[in-house]
Every structure is written in structure tokens, then in C-alpha cells.
């Protein structure tokens, strides 16, 4: 049995369907640890992981931290406010300083698309992309996929609607790659201002949410940032909710057992109505648990076998 054929996790785009399968299977098997009386295994004892977060993120960062703890890795979290980034040090300088601590892996969240690729070229540790600009957020797509697979038993042939701000969303891009590689049928929906050119290569596109959610097995609602209004991407949160928000009536157009995903944090009353967010189709808590499981799988697969890695 050969190891996982990647040294870094920079995005879903570079993965083969079999790689995705391996991560999901591993995550499914590791998830059981979280129900044990002692939620800790010694697998990554002696490995050092740095969580380097240049953007605020409670959810993703704590999920990685829990995964690291469960696998017994030593970890260190650095958030922008406490790092030298505020003193004008460059990303590369910061990371090269951290390298003196001989980390085996760096988990990077950064506002510049492609920054994980940039680091992977210039430093030694394995790089895991925890969200880069509007490019990718691979572990989010993996946890969404694990959740969908658990609820639906499969990914192939599922009809999944992704709704909202596709233009600025790394979650949408990673999910698009993943779902299309795994044979799901994706429909994207949002105002034309928030649908970037060429996005229809992997999915069908509509501006009508009713059309998008019709018969859907799953609906993925993306977060709408209020500051997009000043950029002229839409007119008001009120109108956005009326035209593109997921209301209970709209959710009813989907399949009876539809699953509703949201990467969080939610804007209730903007992209999603509270009744839907708190309703029976919501799997937001499963997403949190699966987030830890998927991140454990990624750490295990990238660090479990190879440490003196040099690709």
C-alpha cells in the first residue's frame, strides 16, 4: 500500500477522485475517536504544526487545533493580531522565522489567493491551505462532502445547489471542484454580479433561486458580506433576502430529505432565514464534527507517513 500521493494540500483542484475518496474514508474511520472516553491517539506525537492565520477564523482554526490535539501533534497558533504581520514583516519572512522551530506542517489562512502555493515553493514544511483569498478552502469542501456522504450515502448523481456570493467565495470553488470530480450535479445561483466568468465550466448557472433549489438533494448557502453592497454587487440585504435568500417556502421546493449546508458564520435574514437555519434539514452541527474528522484525516495522511519530506 503506498502513501498518500501529495505532500501538501493546496486545493481540491489538484486532487484525483481517488485522493478525495481516501481522505473521506480516512475521516470517516477517524471520526470514531471523537466519541472515545479519551479523545486522543498518539499518532502524530513529536510532530510540530503551526497554525498561521492571517484572517480571523474561529471555526476553522479551532477545528484544526482540535484535530491536532486529538492526534497528539504539538501545535502553535499564530493569529495576525499577535504576529509580526502587523509590523510589516512579509509572509515569507514570518514563515522562514517559524521554520527555525522545525515545524513539520504549516496550516495557512491568508487573504491572498495562491499564498499557500507561494509558501510551498519557498519553505520546507508541508502546507495545508486553510483558505486563501477567493481561491480555495479545501478542508471546508471535504467536510461538506463527508457530511453529504453521511446523509445521502453517496456523492455521485446528487443535485447540489450552491447559492449566493460565488464570486468572492473560496468555499464555492473548492466545493465545485470536489463535487464535479465526484460526479455530483451542481447548479450555481446568485445575482449576475456575483457569478464570475467561466464558472459555468463545472456547473449550470441560474439567477433564479427557485429554479436552483428545485429537486435539490442539498443546498449550500454562502455567506453574504454586507460590504459587498458598497461595491455595487447588490442593492440591499433586504432585496437580497427576497430575491436570493433561502426561505422556508423555497426549501420546500427541494427534495423532502434535502440537506442544507452553510460554511458559517451565517447572516440570518440575509442569505438564510432563521427557520431554515434552525430547521430539520440543517446539518450545521454535523459539519462541525466532520470538520474535525476531515482535518484529522488530512494531518494523518500528510504527516503520518512522511516527515523528512522533500518532493
Amino acid at each position, binding site marked *: 500500500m503506498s502513501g498518500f500521493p501529495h505532500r501538501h494540500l493546496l486545493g481540491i483542484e489538484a486532487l484525483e477522485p481517488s485522493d478525495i475518496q481516501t481522505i473521506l474514508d480516512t475521516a470517516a474511520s477517524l471520526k470514531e475517536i471523537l466519541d472515545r472516553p479519551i479523545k486522543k491517539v*498518539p499518532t502524530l506525537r513529536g510532530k510540530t504544526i503551526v497554525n498561521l492565520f492571517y484572517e480571523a477564523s474561529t471555526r476553522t482554526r479551532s477545528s484544526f487545533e482540535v484535530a491536532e490535539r486529538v492526534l497528539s501533534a504539538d501545535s502553535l497558533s499564530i493569529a495576525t493580531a499577535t504576529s509580526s504581520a502587523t509590523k510589516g514583516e512579509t509572509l515569507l519572512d514570518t514563515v522562514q522565522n517559524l521554520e527555525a522551530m522545525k515545524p513539520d506542517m504549516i496550516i495557512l489562512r491568508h487573504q491572498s489567493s495562491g499564498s499557500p502555493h507561494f509558501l510551498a515553493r519557498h519553505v520546507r514544511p508541508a502546507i495545508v491551505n486553510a483558505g486563501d483569498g477567493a481561491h480555495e478552502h479545501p478542508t471546508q469542501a471535504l467536510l461538506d462532502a463527508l457530511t453529504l456522504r453521511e446523509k445521502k450515502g453517496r456523492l455521485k448523481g446528487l443535485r447540489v445547489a450552491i447559492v449566493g456570493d460565488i464570486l468572492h467565495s473560496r468555499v464555492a470553488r473548492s466545493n465545485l471542484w470536489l463535487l464535479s470530480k465526484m460526479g455530483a450535479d451542481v447548479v450555481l445561483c446568485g445575482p449576475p454580479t456575483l457569478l464570475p466568468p467561466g464558472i459555468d465550466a463545472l456547473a449550470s448557472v441560474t439567477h433564479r433561486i427557485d429554479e436552483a433549489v428545485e429537486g435539490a438533494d442539498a443546498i449550500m448557502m454562502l455567506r453574504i458580506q454586507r460590504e459587498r453592497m458598497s461595491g455595487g454587487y447588490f442593492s440591499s440585504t433586504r432585496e437580497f433576502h427576497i430575491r436570493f435568500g433561502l426561505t422556508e417556502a423555497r426549501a420546500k421546493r427541494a427534495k423532502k430529505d434535502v440537506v442544507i449546508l452553510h460554511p458559517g458564520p451565517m447572516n440570518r435574514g440575509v442569505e438564510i432565514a432563521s427557520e431554515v437555519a434552525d430547521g430539520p434539514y440543517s446539518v450545521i452541527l454535523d459539519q462541525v464534527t466532520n470538520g474535525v474528522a476531515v482535518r484529522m484525516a488530512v494531518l494523518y495522511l500528510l504527516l503520518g507517513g512522511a516527515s523528512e519530506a522533500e518532493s
Partner: protein
Amino acid sequence: MGTPAGFKLRQELMDGSRLSRTLARMAHEIAERHPDPARTALVGIRSRGVPLARRLAALVKEALGTAPKVGALDITLYRDDLTTIAPNPVMKGTDIPFSIDGWTVILVDDVLFTGRTVRAALDELIDFGRPARIELAVLVDRGHRELPLHANYVGKSLTTSRQEDVQVQLQEEDGDDRVLLLEREAARPAAPAAKPKPKRKRR
């Protein structure tokens, strides 16, 4: 299932009926020592320890009328050699759906060799709770221990060389019941059909 590449068959240590008789004897010993199976669990070490644990449990039930509980341990996450062998990405997972606090747990594996697998299994088991007692049952003990461990129930003990390998084949996993003693083939330079060895190169 045939002989793995690079090995040749030296001897069949057990056939199907011999294997059954051996397990029956082991079950008998277990039943004798633990007449109350209600607080005893057989936990197999993946992969072949699991069907062995199931069989032993069934045989204990025949003797005592009650079956001990059966669990499965996947020790992948507890190995001490993760960085020296390629990881096996497909984990089957640990499955112990009951509390082991205060119980007697009998770990079951097919072959006892260096003892490192059992060490990992003990570590993992202890993370699950505090058993009153842990015992070890193995079908074959082939010696060469690297740790101070011994088995409480042994199907067959034999002296082997490091060039040899003991392979247990089971109906549930391999389609047939038997135990084989294999010998590593000497590297013959002129071997015409020598398969290129899959290189386990660490990247």
C-alpha cells in the same frame, strides 16, 4: 490466496481442521479461566485478530452458554513506526461499542512476533478505559520478542528464523483456513521473472 511474492512455502503448519481444533482448545482454556463471560470481552487486533476473536467467542458460548462481547482494534494510529513504513491510508477503524472499565479484556491476534503490535494495542486499549485485567491470545507464537510480553493463550509455539514468515489464512479474510511457514527467497541475481520491487521511497 497463494504465497506472497518474494516468499516460498516451506511447510503447512496447520490445515483447516487442525486450526479448528486449536481454536477449540484455546476457547476451552479461556472458558476455564473465565467462567463468567458477562464481564469478559474478546478484542481482535485488525485485521485477522478480529475473525479469530469472533470464532473464539462463539466457541466460548458453546462451552458456557453465554458469549463474551467482541470488539475490534485498529492500531494504525498507535504504531511506533509510522514514519518508517508507508502509511496504510485505508483504516478500518476501532470498534469497541461497550465500556471495558473493570472488565477482563482478551486481546486476540493471529501471530505474536516482536510484540510491537501488542504494545500498540495495549496503549490504545488503555485509552478506552481501565480494564481489570488484560490477557493475550494468539494463534501462533513465533518468537523474536523485542518487548517483555508473553501470551496467556497460545495455539502453537514454534521457533522460526528471521528469514521466515508465518502466515495465517482465514475463511473470512482469505477464503480458506490454514497456517503456513514461508521462507524469504534468496535474491537470485539471474531470476528471470523477478518483479521489480515496489520501492517504498519516502517522499
